[in-house]
């Protein structure tokens, strides 16, 4: 029995680090799940006790109220489910336009921040410091209540050649009315796009092989403009413009950009652009100055240097924080409720919730949708980032 004295005693199983790790994770999982189940059961019990209806049946009942802006056909007789789609599309519209405009403006301001021109650089600095330091809601109120409320009444509209009208009810633009035969022009545009792609490939190959450059941009523009226009003319101009006309209280016909949307879009764009400008500046400054000097000594002009040398490298730094700004902009668009723009939060999580009283369902749907939109934006930006990122060999 001597050997047993010296052999190390087998440690009890709870001292085994692997067993412990698994056990703690299991406990955490069980605790989380049972807490979730408790909350769920509790909610159910409470709803039942208070006699509040639950479930998603309400989505098919008629809504009974009108909405000022809808991208799809909608009337008060449509269902709550239809309200959801109208509201979602309104949110996506303002978010998508906001992302595009904020990116463009942000890049311009960001580059201007680094301009050698003292005045331009200072103006860009003032822009950034002003707009990113004022709360977004205040900016929305500023545009809505201060700026757009100062517009004249419909009868006193500012007009541009009796085609475009601006008044307190919005910006009225002529709406294109498509006639049969317009399909040819669209087809011609499709062909032009295809030819442009072929041209770009060919020009790249030729430059790689021979070093000779081809004026791709002007050729592509000519192709993209002339081919559809020529077809359009040959098809007998199958398009007319429906002009907005003052009838009774308001202008009717044409397209209208309502002030609620305009002020929300302006505020989101200007606010987010200030952050994007700083991201762009940081990205450009992250590229070592030697790159610029090397580019100049190779004979490239400043424009080409920025476009071909600096920006591609800066993008690697820019894209991840830029994604955050896109997510912020999309989520900030829910401030729409403050000025009556019919977005998801205002129309669905607001009016529908109130008319049906089904708070849990409406809020759950809305949260799930914002989560899905955010994850989708992240996914797309991550894919783009993978393309722009440094490829290590």
């Amino acid at each position: 029995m001597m050997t047993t004295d010296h052999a190390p005693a087998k440690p009890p199983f709870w001292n085994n680090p692997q067993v412990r790790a698994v056990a703690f994770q299991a406990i955490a999982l069980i605790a989380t799940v049972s807490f979730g189940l408790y909350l769920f059961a509790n909610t159910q019990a409470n709803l039942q006790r208070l006699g509040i209806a639950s479930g998603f049946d309400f989505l098919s009942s008629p809504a009974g109220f009108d909405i000022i802006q809808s991208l799809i056909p909608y009337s008060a007789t449509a269902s709550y489910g239809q309200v959801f789609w109208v509201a979602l599309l309104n949110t996506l519209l303002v978010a998508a336009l906001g992302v595009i405009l904020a990116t463009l403006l942000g890049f311009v301001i960001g580059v201007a921040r680094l301009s050698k021109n003292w005045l331009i650089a200072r103006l860009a600095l003032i822009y950034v410091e002003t707009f990113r330091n004022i709360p977004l809601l205040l900016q929305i109120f500023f545009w809505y209540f201060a700026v757009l409320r100062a517009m004249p009444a419909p009868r006193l509209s500012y007009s541009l050649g009796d085609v475009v009208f601006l008044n307190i009810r919005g910006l009225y633009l002529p709406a294109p009315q498509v006639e049969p035969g317009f399909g040819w022009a669209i087809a011609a545009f499709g062909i032009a796009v295809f030819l442009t792609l072929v041209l770009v490939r060919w020009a790249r190959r030729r430059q790689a092989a021979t070093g000779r450059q081809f004026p791709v941009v002007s050729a592509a523009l000519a192709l993209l403009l002339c081919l559809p226009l020529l077809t359009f003319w040959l098809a007998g101009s199958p398009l007319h413009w429906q002009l907005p006309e003052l009838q009774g209280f308001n202008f009717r016909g044409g397209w209208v950009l309502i002030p609620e949307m305009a002020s929300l879009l302006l505020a989101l764009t200007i606010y987010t652009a200030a952050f994007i400008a700083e991201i762009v500046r940081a990205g450009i400054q992250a590229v070592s100055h030697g790159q610029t000097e090397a580019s100049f000594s190779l004979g490239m002009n400043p424009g080409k240097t920025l476009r071909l040398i600096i920006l591609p490298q800066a993008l690697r730094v820019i894209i991840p924080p830029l994604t955050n700004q896109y997510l912020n902009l999309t989520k900030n668009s829910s401030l729409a409720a403050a000025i009556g723009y019919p977005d998801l939060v205002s129309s669905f999580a607001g009016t529908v919730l109130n008319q049906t009283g089904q708070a849990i369902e409406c809020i759950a749907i809305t949260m799930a949708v914002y989560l899905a939109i955010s994850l989708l934006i992240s996914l797309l930006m991550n894919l783009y980032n993978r393309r722009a990122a440094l490829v290590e060999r």
Partner: protein
Amino acid sequence: MNRAKTLTLTAAAMMLLTAAGSAYAGKTLDAIKERGFIKCGVSDGLPGFSYADEKGNYNGIDVDVCRAVAAAVFGDATKVKFTPLTAKERLTALQSGEIDVLSRNTTWTSSRDSAQGLNFTGVTYYDGQGFLVNKKLGVKSAKQLDGATVCVQAGTTTELNLSDYFRANKLKLTPISYDKSDESAKSLEAGRCDVLTSDQSQLYAQRIKLAKPDDYVVLPEVISKEPLGPVVRHGDDEWFDIVKWALFVMVNAEEAGVTSNNVDAMKKSTNPDIKRLLGVEGDKGKDFGLANDWMAVVIKQVGNYGEVFDRNVGKGSPLKIERGLNALWTQGGLQYAPPVR
């Protein structure tokens, strides 16, 4: 289960967690007595109904209903904490237990009484929806509103009636839904909308808040029935009864000619109805689980229905609204309360 679904469920559950707390805290009345005050949801600024003056004191018909409930429970009409709520927030706040009673010009409807788990305790004000327009437009009837832009409060029955009315009369409608009634009023003034629609009482109240009230006129059409009253949650009949009778007491008091001024003298009355009402005879008050003379306290501290009406929206107020439908049944109106017996 995917991520979105998991989140959805968790979120859903989290929302009623607060409600769970109050659900197990015992009956509403016990919780209120322990707390020492009533949590009452009122509107976020509507002259005559609930409006905070420069000192932060609330006034109005809806406010007085809550004061009456506090007088009934505590014998002290000041033991109320008011929570200003928008039209969109109000019902959820009540459902989740954030407030004990909602007294915020809320229309009694079938779906609120059933699917939304609420109980209306009575009608403080019989109202109907109307339209407020600028006189400059020269509109004489709501039927002339084809193509008009209309400001309306989001999440109200008004929003639904508006769509129904325009559809039924084949008029084109452009609605703008704001969360706050103040925003609607500002938009009407600025000309963002041609018309403001709401319950008529609210239109009168909104009008006196405008810079030039005389430039605006309420159109003659009343397009809906809007019985406005206090609301409580399902599931506590005792509390339901107290809130219900706080209002009935005030109506009965007006009918019996008992006012806040003469209530003490009236205790010597020989009229058996008045004796029961003031707790001089019998123990009707005790049946509610309250002090036996609580009805007299309500009348003394808050007043009868007629006093409350006149002081807040009627002759004694800037609104000068006629009693109309809100006169007692004995005077051709609809205000009628069950007897104290």
